[in-house]
């Protein structure tokens, strides 16, 4: 999909930031730095959403991921902090290599499929704004049942996490 777009500057910059931050998130020594780079990576994705004309989604991404999930992650990191310094986190080198192979193969094959399917997709993004006021009606009129299911999911997750985290005496 992206291969057909002429490399324009925002795209390149956002890609670099997001990917570098994603790598940092997994490779940094200190878990806190990992969480911060994860946040940066999420903000990069939000930038993509803005450039794809979905500003509300970008705000949702920042508020939910960076505002809430990262806070939760930070807090959990501080809860499970060990007193002795972290040992080397990498697995054995053969496992690392295997992981790289799998991931690389997958990424390359998906990119290949995208490249093959690329010509059949429209190459220019649509012009003109999508009014964000469309979101509400679509949400409420077309998808009311998922909304109810989501309510159940949210309450289930809330109670489940609470019961899990509770201290048993």
């Amino acid at each position, binding site marked *: 999909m*992206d291969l057909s777009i002429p490399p324009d500057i925002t*795209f390149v910059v956002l890609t670099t930031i*997001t*990917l570098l931050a*994603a790598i940092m*998130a*997994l490779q940094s020594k200190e*878990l806190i730095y990992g*969480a911060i780079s*994860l946040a940066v*990576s999420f903000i990069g*994705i939000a930038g*993509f959403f803005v450039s*794809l*004309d*979905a500003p*509300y*989604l970008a705000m*949702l*991404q920042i508020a*939910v*991921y960076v505002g*809430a*999930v990262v806070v*939760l*992650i930070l807090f*959990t990191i501080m*809860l*499970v902090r*060990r007193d002795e310094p972290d040992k080397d*986190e*990498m*697995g054995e080198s053969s496992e690392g290599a295997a*992981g*790289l192979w*799998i*991931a690389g193969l*997958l*990424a390359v094959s*998906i*990119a290949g499929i*995208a490249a093959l399917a690329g010509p059949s*997709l*429209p190459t220019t*993004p*649509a012009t003109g704004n*999508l009014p964000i006021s*469309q*979101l509400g009606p*679509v*949400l409420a009129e077309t998808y009311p049942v998922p909304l109810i299911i*989501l309510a159940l*999911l*949210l309450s289930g*997750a809330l109670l*489940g*996490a609470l019961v*899990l*985290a509770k*201290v048993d005496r």
Partner: protein
Amino acid sequence: MSAALLGIGIYGLSVKRNAIRILFAVELIVNAANLNFVAFARYMNPSEVTGQVIVFYSIAAAAMEAAVGLALILVAFRLNSTIDVRKLNKLKG
């Protein structure tokens, strides 16, 4: 781009030993999928917001997954005082 993010995610999922790192990787994968949803919706069906609405639900689900996952990590840490998944293999007996 999305594929590369997915690749990084899968790599993290398969290699890392720290449970929190694995959660990071899962979040990255979900984000790659979200990005694809929005991008394809924008390119193939520009006049509708359906792709974005799906991502709404996806983000909500991912946030809940993170909450429950972190609670699980907390429990694991409390029981075993480690969050290294290679050491959390008590079920082997």
